């Protein structure tokens, strides 16, 4: 197989980057490259109800529901529909509908834009009907043509006529042929899930670090499970879905799965998406049995995902909203690029930093994530942790996990000391991206969110943690012993660890060296005496 030359790869990555720019939104174009051979017993192109033109998404959904009578009801119970999650441990009401992050900040007041990644149609304000079954979007998860694409600003709809997107970009997004898409539906591919999850945070690779467009068709170096020329897993292979409910959660991740054992047919497994669900808690062979002594304290991901953002698409590492709003000499918003051609500044959003092949940070994590919510009082003199991974070396539940730490600056109310939600997107005069007026944007954003705004604001430093769990490297590229046991090592910032080879107890060392020295002296003395005595004996 010919080696992909650097230039070819650069051209390819530039093309992808250009595509990503064009699609730098949730709901980016879906490729059907991961389409597997189908074992379905139904050929949807033979269904009469689908052999007609469709004018809208909900029309297609009504046709789907005429056979799949329970599908919408199932979807409507999931986080993908409700955008809500009640954490049973912390009792925090989470989900996209409620949380504030340090990327685009929050959904309320920006529904038409953000709901490009909702599995529904028409969610454009607080009055969305969560019970309407025809508003469930079947196609976004089941399209196999790669032509179905939801654009920000359309409240979860695909374009029904060709549109220029982004506006004034000169790029045309074609309206999908809904009938054709409906007749070719199939199982969800990596591209289906990736249309949103690869583009979280407003662009390719922005949010997660371990999920980006390079995972549509990854090479073996990037992900041994999903490699197109290897196991070719789809997302659903691990996130084994039942009744449209996709297991796996970033609000309540499974930090340790050792007591569940290997996932078996017929056995209910709490989370089939963990490594242990397939590999078990002691996965290394007898030849490497010592590694199994690490698995009670070290998450598999720590060693087996040595770096993230390895697919040639850099991930965003920081976002500073406080610098947004600068205009050029003509009073127009502008963008600046960094040396790699990635956005470094955008008048609408502020300053960014991107990085690829990022070495993760490592933390103790027991599965509990605490969020700074809208009502949480904060201390603006500190860096605010938008979410906090709980854990310690002593709680018996924690493992050391790799994370991406994303930093930023975002608006907060200097009177109430709470985070603020800006109204960023909208065709109205108050949206920040229209008028670059923080006062108006924050007033409307907080009103829509049902919160209060004193009228006084500033920007506070924030950070957010993301567990790294995709982009599993080949075993030959797992961390070596030396990378943790040597000094400096990967785990230097993790508290409560004694790592042989890296750490030392001064008294233990003194005792050991003293014992060695005394032994040496004893050997020399004993040997010397024997030589002396032997010579004496010879003389006599």
């Amino acid at each position, binding site marked *: 197989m010919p080696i*992909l*030359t*650097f*230039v070819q790869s*650069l051209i390819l990555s530039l093309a992808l980057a250009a595509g990503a720019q064009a699609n730098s939104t949730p709901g980016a174009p879906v490729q059907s490259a991961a389409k597997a051979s189908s074992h379905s017993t139904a050929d949807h192109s033979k269904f009469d109800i689908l052999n007609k033109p469709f004018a809208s998404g909900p029309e297609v959904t009504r046709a789907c529901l005429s056979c799949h009578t329970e599908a919408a009801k199932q979807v409507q119970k999931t986080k993908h529909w409700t955008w809500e999650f009640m954490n049973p441990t912390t009792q925090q009401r989470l989900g996209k509908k409620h949380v504030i992050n340090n990327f685009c900040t929050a959904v309320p007041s920006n529904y038409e834009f953000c709901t490009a990644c909702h599995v529904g149609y028409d969610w454009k304000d607080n009055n969305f009907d969560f019970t309407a079954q025809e508003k469930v979007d079947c196609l976004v998860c089941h399209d196999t043509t790669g032509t179905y694409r939801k654009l920000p600003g359309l409240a979860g709809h695909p374009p029904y006529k060709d549109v220029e997107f982004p506006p004034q970009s000169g790029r045309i997004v074609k309206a999908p042929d809904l009938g054709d898409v409906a007749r070719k539906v199939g199982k969800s591919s990596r591209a289906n899930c990736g249309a949103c999850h690869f583009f979280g945070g407003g662009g390719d690779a922005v949010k997660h670090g371990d999920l980006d467009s390079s995972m549509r068709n990854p090479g073996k*170096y990037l992900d041994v499970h999903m490699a197109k020329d290897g196991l070719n897993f789809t997302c659903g292979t691990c996130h084994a879905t039942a009744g449209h409910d996709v297991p796996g959660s970033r609000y309540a991740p499974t930090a340790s799965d050792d007591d569940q054992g290997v996932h078996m047919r017929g056995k209910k497994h709490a989370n089939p998406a963990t490594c242990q669900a397939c590999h078990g808690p002691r996965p290394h062979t007898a030849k490497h049995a010592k590694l199994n002594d690490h698995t009670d304290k070290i998450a598999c991901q720590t060693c087996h995902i040595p770096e993230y953002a390895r697919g040639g698409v850099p991930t965003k590492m920081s976002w500073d909203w406080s610098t947004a709003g600068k205009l050029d000499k003509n009073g127009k918003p502008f963008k600046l690029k960094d*040396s790699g051609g990635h956005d470094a500044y955008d008048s609408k959003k502020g300053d960014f930093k991107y990085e690829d092949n990022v070495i993760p940070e490592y933390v103790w994590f027991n599965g509990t994530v605490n969020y700074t919510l809208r009502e949480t009082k904060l201390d603006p003199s500190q860096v605010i942790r938008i979410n906090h991974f709980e854990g310690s070396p002593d709680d018996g539940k924690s493992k050391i996990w790799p994370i991406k730490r994303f930093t930023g600056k975002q608006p907060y109310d200097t009177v109430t000391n709470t985070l603020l939600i800006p109204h960023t997107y909208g065709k109205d005069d108050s949206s920040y991206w229209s008028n670059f007026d923080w006062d108006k944007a924050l007033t409307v954003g907080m009103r829509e969110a049902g919160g209060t705004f004193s009228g006084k604001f500033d920007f506070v430093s924030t950070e957010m943690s993301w567990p790294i769990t995709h982009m599993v490297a*080949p075993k030959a590229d797992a961390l070596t012993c030396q990378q943790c046991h040597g000094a400096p090592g990967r785990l230097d910032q993790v508290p409560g660890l004694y790592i042989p080879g890296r750490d030392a107890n001064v008294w233990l060392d003194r005792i050991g060296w003293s014992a060695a020295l005394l032994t040496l002296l004893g050997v020399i003395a004993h040997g010397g005496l024997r030589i002396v005595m032997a010579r004496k004996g010879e003389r006599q």
Partner: protein
Amino acid sequence: MLKALAGFVVGIVVIALAGWMMMPHLMFTERVSPFGMEETVARIQHNIQNTGNGWELSGLRNPAKAVQSDGGNVLPVLMIEACSTDYSKPILKEDTVRFLSILMPCKISVYKKNDGKVYIGTMNAGLMGKMFGPLVGEVMGKVAADQQKFLAFDPSTPAPPMILPAAPAAGGGGGQGSGGGC
């Protein structure tokens, strides 16, 4: 007499050992870059273009790509290649030192290490040149002086764009050379 000879031999061995251990640090230099991978590469590339003396960029190689193609991972490495005919010509004209063409083009390596920092690796052209007689010593001395200019960064200037190779060409190491300069 025997003791003096033994001392002489031990002295030679110690000096040879010290030389052996110090050689890599003398022949090659490594420094931490204050910038990320792409910005470091871009700034060096622009410095090369602004140095004059016939310097031109002749390639940008990415050996990590070849490892990826083979199903493996290494941390990022980018090799900037530059050449100046002002300096290559006198060496290439002289039969006795033509073999030094294996050192062409001049390479500067930018790479990330496990501490997360970006490093710049260069050859100590000045010292190496002195090993090959006055002609090469003089030329490589000039190369070494220019090399210092390549690595002189001004953080107050905005990050320039990375200069991507002009045309695709087959090449080992997942890289290419556009043939500029030499």
